[in-house]
């Protein structure tokens, strides 16, 4: 894992001291809310419906046990005993007092964490594949580059006041688990024919009220040019991105309105000025950062196969969890484990302080001290000996985190929605909970197969509804909640934006509507191997529309 050097420590400590002073002056009435608001946002402090909210960065989704324990401590001491893991691999606390936030930030700094640039029109937390460094299908670990981007973008003087927020995601695998094509910049780390590392560069993806899939503007950017090329993109955006209209200010609009060809030409022209200059990454620097992310030494644990075989015979539920939540590791003696934060009827992404402590203990005992946060709002143990899987499973059962539903319909992404969020128009959590309960049977879920359901409580799309196989968008219509359903979205290497299927559904109808969609899929799929998304792409919306709305057309 990355460790702060002296500069990092000083930088974060200085920010804590600075913000502590700003909070004190605000509470003393020496600065106004209008003056303070941008300052608090730069430090991740929002005002929500019930209280302030603090969003803490989890860089590229990687946490140590010590850091996770500190998050548990914060939940217990300053909040209400839980935290919410977000779709940007961050964590949010929903109830902190403003007067406590300096102390929280000081606690975070003691474990090399902060809340800098988790809000505001700047480059936000750089996200990465949650299986980075463990995945069998990876060209290289993308996190060193995410860390390089983090260092470059932290209080970058030129890019701290962009037209709008800016999000970067990096993956090192062909199979995209980081949703890079829905980001302002998406980077796909890969090797060329000569075995050299570089990036396919995607620009202008995003969700919100104008969902657009990112365009690939370069197929292979040699790794040493990462910062100069990103600088060129940001410069073009900073210069031409719209500042007159908040809703048209993201880079996706600029790319769309300029045209990919012309936008690419502008970036390349800017890059020609920057290329091979001071932003070129020296090989030694890349290696130095790489060293922080050196994979743990994985001792041979060949007894895993036999242990698992016996444990499978002994426990059907373990066997199911193994099939659903455990994925192949690059080392055959090891596996990566998804700890579902989507227990049936639970709040997607929420974890209690004691659960966080328990997962931290598991990581320390069995997983080389490493935990990941996935953008799908689960926790990951990336390196686990297969021989230890049963012990881990047993402990997860004890703490209520052993639900075997990874990638199934109850593995729902949901934003906090109107239960917490000041921007929301409708609730998300309760919709997720009701759908989860309706499909509570894991047997039924497994029969349905891979199905990514994503829910947002407003058009800002924090719940990624546009790219859900089934997406649900909550809106407010005539003072009541209404839920619009989209089908056919996807956030993988074949990213697509879902299509609105028809009129929306009330809070009491939406669960039935989703069940109708699922039953329709089951009826039309060629066989069990044809996943929901594949079936939808084959047949299109017609049978789903028919199933959802034909009755009312006839009635009318």
């Amino acid at each position, binding site marked *: 894992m990355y460790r702060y050097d002296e500069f990092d420590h000083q930088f974060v400590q200085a920010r804590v001291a600075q913000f502590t002073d700003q909070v004190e002056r605000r509470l003393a009435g020496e600065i106004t809310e209008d003056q303070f608001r941008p300052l608090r946002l730069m430090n991740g402090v929002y*005002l*929500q419906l*019930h*209280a302030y909210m603090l969003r803490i960065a989890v860089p590229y989704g990687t946490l140590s046990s010590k850091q996770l324990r500190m998050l548990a401590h914060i939940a217990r001491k300053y909040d209400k005993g839980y935290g919410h893991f977000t779709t940007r691999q961050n964590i949010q606390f929903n109830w902190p007092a*403003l007067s406590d936030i300096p102390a929280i930030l000081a606690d975070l700094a003691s474990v090399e964490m902060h809340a800098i640039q988790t809000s505001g029109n700047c480059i936000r937390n750089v996200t990465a594949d949650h299986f980075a460094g463990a995945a069998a299908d990876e060209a290289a670990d993308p996190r060193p580059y995410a860390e390089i981007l983090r260092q470059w973008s932290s209080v970058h003087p030129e890019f701290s006041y962009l037209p709008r927020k800016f999000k970067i995601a990096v993956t090192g695998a062909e199979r995209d688990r980081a949703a890079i094509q829905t980001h302002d910049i998406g980077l796909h780390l890969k090797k060329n024919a000569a075995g050299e590392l570089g990036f396919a560069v995607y620009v202008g993806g995003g969700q919100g009220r104008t969902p657009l899939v990112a365009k690939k503007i370069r197929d292979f950017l040699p790794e040493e040019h990462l910062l100069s090329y990103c600088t060129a993109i940001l410069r073009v955006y900073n210069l031409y991105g719209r500042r007159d209209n908040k809703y048209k200010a993201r880079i996706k609009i600029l790319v769309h309105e300029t045209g990919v060809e012309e936008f690419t030409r502008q970036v390349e022209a800017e890059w020609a000025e920057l290329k091979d200059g001071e932003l070129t990454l020296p090989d030694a620097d890349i290696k130095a950062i790489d060293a922080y992310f050196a994979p743990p030494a994985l001792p041979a644990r060949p007894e895993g196969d036999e242990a698992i075989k016996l444990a499978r015979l002994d426990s059907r539920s373990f066997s199911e969890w193994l099939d659903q939540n455990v994925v192949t590791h690059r080392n055959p003696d090891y596996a990566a484990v998804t700890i579902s934060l989507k227990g049936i009827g639970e*709040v997607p992404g929420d974890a209690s302080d004691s659960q966080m402590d328990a997962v931290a203990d598991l990581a320390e005992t069995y997983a080389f001290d490493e935990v990941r946060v996935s953008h799908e709002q689960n926790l990951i143990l990336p390196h686990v000996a297969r021989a230890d899987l049963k012990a881990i499973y047993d402990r997860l059962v004890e703490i209520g985190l052993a639900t075997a539903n990874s990638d199934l319909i109850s593995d729902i992404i949901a934003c906090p929605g109107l*239960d917490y969020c000041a921007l929301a128009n409708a609730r998300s959590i309760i919709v997720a*909970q009701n759908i989860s309960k309706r499909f509570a049977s894991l047997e039924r879920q497994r029969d349905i197969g891979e199905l990514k359901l994503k829910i947002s409580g407003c058009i800002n799309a924090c719940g990624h509804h546009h790219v859900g196989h089934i997406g649900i968008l909550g809106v*407010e219509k005539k*003072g009541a909640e209404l839920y619009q359903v989209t089908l056919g979205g996807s956030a993988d290497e074949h990213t697509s934006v879902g299509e609105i299927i028809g009129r929306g559904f009330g809070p009491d109808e939406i669960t039935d509507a989703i069940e109708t969609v699922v039953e329709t899929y089951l009826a039309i799929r060629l066989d069990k191997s044809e996943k929901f998304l594949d079936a939808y792409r084959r047949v299109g919306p017609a049978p789903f529309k028919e199933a959802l709305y034909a009755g009312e057309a006839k009635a009318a």
Partner: protein
Amino acid sequence: MKILTANRLTDGEAVWYAGGAWAETIDSSELAADKAAEERLEAIGAASFAANEVVDVNLIDVEIVDGVIHPLRLRERIRAAGPTNRNDLGKQARPTAA
């Protein structure tokens, strides 16, 4: 009919203006039934904001149902009670005065 609401500066607690002070529950909010009363509440809110007591000050629409103040928007009903998925959190979790 309207009432005045805000969040307290120090801790973000949702509060409502009730006869001379900010209250942590909605029940005793001062009602504005006409334009003049709304303007009076607005002035109180602006002064309290300027005095750094509260932030995010708003007049919200309410009706009286069975003698109880009932915000028209769900958003405001959730602010007044707490998250609908967690009855153990927010105002709804607090012991009501006897």
